[in-house]
């Protein structure tokens, strides 16, 4: 039996600095792991739509014709499924939370227009690929005719 067990702790707390922070004057600290928000590096994204299929809350929409990647941050539950599924590893979980808002909104990212150089490089790559395929096909045809 007894009382005043907490006196020591109370005195300590009187001289210690506060356990809470004066948010928003003092910025919150996040750990490396904190699940803040999903960021998409649209440059490497190939708009395959796997993230859209894997998302359990249907928060992501991928529109291939328009080349856009859309996320509804209010539906996202920070589950990492999309980050793990992305074949290009262009999704990432950033540690800071997005700002509170008065309205539900989505964030749409559009694939940037290619510069002239990038366009040329892309065309060249496509041409090379088409040539490679044609070559392989020709070789296969030749082999087939030989066999018969």
């Amino acid at each position, binding site marked *: *039996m*007894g*009382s005043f*067990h*907490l006196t*020591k*702790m*109370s005195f300590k707390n009187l001289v210690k600095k506060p*356990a809470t922070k004066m948010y928003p004057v003092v910025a919150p600290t996040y*750990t*490396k*792991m*904190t*699940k803040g928000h999903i960021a998409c590096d649209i440059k490497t994204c190939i708009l395959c739509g796997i993230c859209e299929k894997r998302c*359990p809350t249907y928060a992501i929409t991928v529109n291939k014709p328009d080349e856009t990647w859309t996320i509804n941050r209010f539906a996202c*539950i*920070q*589950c*990492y*499924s999309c980050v793990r599924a992305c074949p290009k590893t262009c999704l990432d*979980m950033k540690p800071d939370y997005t700002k509170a808002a008065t309205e539900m909104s989505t964030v749409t990212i559009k694939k940037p227009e290619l510069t002239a150089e990038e366009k040329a490089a892309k065309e060249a790559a496509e041409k090379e690929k088409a040539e490679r395929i044609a070559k392989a096909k020709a070789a296969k045809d030749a082999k087939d005719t030989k066999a018969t």
Partner: protein
Amino acid sequence: MGNKTVIPFGPQHPVLPEPLHLDLVIEDEKVLEAIPQIGFVHRGLEKLVSKKDYMQFVLVAERICGICAFGHSLGYSETIEALMKIEVPKRAEYLRVIWHELSRIHSHMLWLGLLADAFGYENLFMQCWRLREVVLDIFEETTGGRVILTACNVGGVEQDIENSELKGIVERLDKMIVEYKQLLKVFLKDRSVKSRLVGVGYISKEDAFKAACVGPFGRASGLEEDIRMFGFGAYGDLADFKLITSNDGDGYARSEVRALEIIQSVDIIKELVDKIPDGPYNQKIKGTPEAGSYAVSRLEQPRGECYYFAKGNGTKFLERFRIRTPTSQNVAGMVQTLQGCDLADVPLNVLTIDPCISCTER
């Protein structure tokens, strides 16, 4: 002799952490009978197995309860592993138990705080929740979430914790325990706390057994049951596991059992951190549960034994998934403790079983 009156109590009441409704039949400030009613937060989560595949459902399982979130994802994963006969890597088993025991610490600290708040000891309430922050910070650093961890998955765990980080965690827990022992003195020795708890809400061992009470509530009445003692998973590698029980069966005994379990959990974590093997912590899962196969598993949640059942149908969706939560077991015992108690003790009695109604209703 006064007349019988019926007082509705809850589901919204300042002292209730969860939506439970009681019809209290009162005579002269004494409770003659308490009729419980639940069903205010039913969300139909078990039915969702037909919408979410068995890998995605772990995210739903975790959201069954906000306090034992990790426990439910663990229980679900273990059931599916039994269903599909998957062997879990040893390191994953250890990490799971470490996180689960951390959850137990945070759950019990939360409860001790709520108890202090219920008998009007605000300072004690704040100190309990301040210490609980240590565990929540550890969760955030190791998994990225403070409550919903998304750390457990079928086949293993999502993240590894480095061995050096595990040592750091143990050091922080050690520091926390030094402070916690001061609070423990208050809970176990303070005169005002004792006057509110000793002898309140008594239930005998026989009655607790008949009402099938589980967890700290049952153990406080002398029932010797704790799923951890059967040594499933990494619990089997513990050198020794001593049950914490009491024979008093009152509110004081319940707070004592829970308060001491925090220290026990820290000891378990320490031992597992010393023994944790290196190796993989996750694996790729292929295939689906076979048609007609079923599995059950049991897990000691902070509130007691939780029972999981799953049945496969050959597709990636489960045929049936069912949980029996500890609170649904303990409500019968709680009603017995309420019979004959003072009206002023009702909130405290309800609280001492640590009810988790949102788990119970799912």
